[in-house]
């Protein structure tokens, strides 16, 4: 028996029918062609699949798709607007926080979630805020600086 869902996706009302075991990540990538969130491990360990559920970061690979019914989902594609990159994204670009970029969507989601809870995080809070997101390229330094740069503005 498929589950019927209605939710807000990147500002737009949408609906879908899913199996109860479907992961949110699959719903977003397969049904809505939003490939920004990545499958990095499927085990909750890398954060590449993170999206915002009611503005709080969750893992797309471990969150059942049914969990979004009636709620608001924002993916990396929904962070920027028609005016261009968000301040956070711009900071990621200009601080050199992006190399291969595979971790970037999840990392930005984690940072956005942190900044909502803690608009002026300390470097220590930023590190802890990003602890669920793996990056193999950058060594995280530039990302931490990017999040700091956002709250400098």
């Amino acid at each position: 028996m498929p589950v019927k869902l209605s939710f807000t996706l990147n500002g737009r009302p949408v609906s879908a029918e899913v199996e109860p075991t479907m992961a949110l990540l699959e719903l977003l990538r397969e049904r809505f062609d939003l490939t920004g969130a990545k499958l990095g491990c499927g085990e909750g360990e890398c954060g590449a699949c993170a999206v915002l559920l009611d503005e709080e970061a969750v893992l797309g690979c471990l969150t059942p798709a049914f969990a979004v019914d009636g709620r608001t989902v924002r993916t990396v594609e929904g962070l920027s607007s028609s005016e261009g990159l968000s301040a956070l994204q711009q900071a990621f670009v200009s601080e050199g926080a992006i190399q291969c970029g595979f971790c970037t969507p999840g990392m930005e989601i984690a940072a956005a979630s942190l900044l909502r809870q803690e608009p002026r995080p300390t470097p220590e809070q930023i590190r802890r805020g990003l602890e669920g997101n793996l990056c193999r390229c950058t060594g995280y330094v530039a990302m931490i600086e990017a999040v700091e740069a956002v709250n400098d503005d």
Partner: protein
Amino acid sequence: MKGGPAREALRAVNPPTGYFRPDSVADALEILARVDQARVVAGGTDWMLSVRTQGQVPAAVVDIFRLEELQGLIRHPDALEIGAAVTVARLLASAEVARDAPLLAQAADRFGSPPVRSRATIGGNLCNASPAADLTVALLASDATVEVASRRCRRSLAIRELVLGPRRTALASDELLVSVRVPIRPGAVWAFQKSGRRPALEISAAAVAFSAVLQDGHLREPRIACGAVAPTPMRALQAERLIADRRLDPSLILACARRAAAEVEPIDDVRGSALYRRRLVGAFVSRCLEGCHAG
């Protein structure tokens, strides 16, 4: 071009046929009583993984994550009552928890990562019955009890009575864990220690939670709970007895640490050898005791 991830990792072979999202505990219990092989799902952080890796797909899913009655964080005069669906993120953000259930707060701080904590629930941690469940270890040292309900009855269990073995609890298939009661311990000292270089995102190779009341230098009712060193989180009762009602000194701390290390029953696995786990228990117990010795 259209996209798609490596889905094989994301999907069960035979999906369940039923999905329920009850609005009340009573409804939830009704469903659990009636629907054969219905499975409670809270945050799903353990459940989604088991669906994928072990192909354990239930006939029906009972989604309790948003059930209002399970969201409470209530301060009673003698205890903090925590709803089963309260997330680790909420535990971490709560001033009551920090004040009245500090072990839980410390365990929550070292738990998973922010996006895991925003879904993982306290009830799920208990019911998943992992030997390494950090909140369960903290609750064990806090002498917490749980409220369990079914259409048949309501009962209260100690943690030790709830968690029976790896992935095994005392819950019957129609029972729901409703809340956790953490007794408030005025004047108590607390410490939580967990293995690993990282602050979090680490499954414990060993964890120790400690609590006692310090009365003119003597430790009253000390509780030492250890995780990941036995089939279930366990109390190091012999070690507790060694220090109960005594004044700590370095040689007693050492003896207690050794005793705890000796009485746990760890196994070798990829996260550490049994010997290393014993060593960690010893180190953590001695840290916990030194902390309250010094403080």
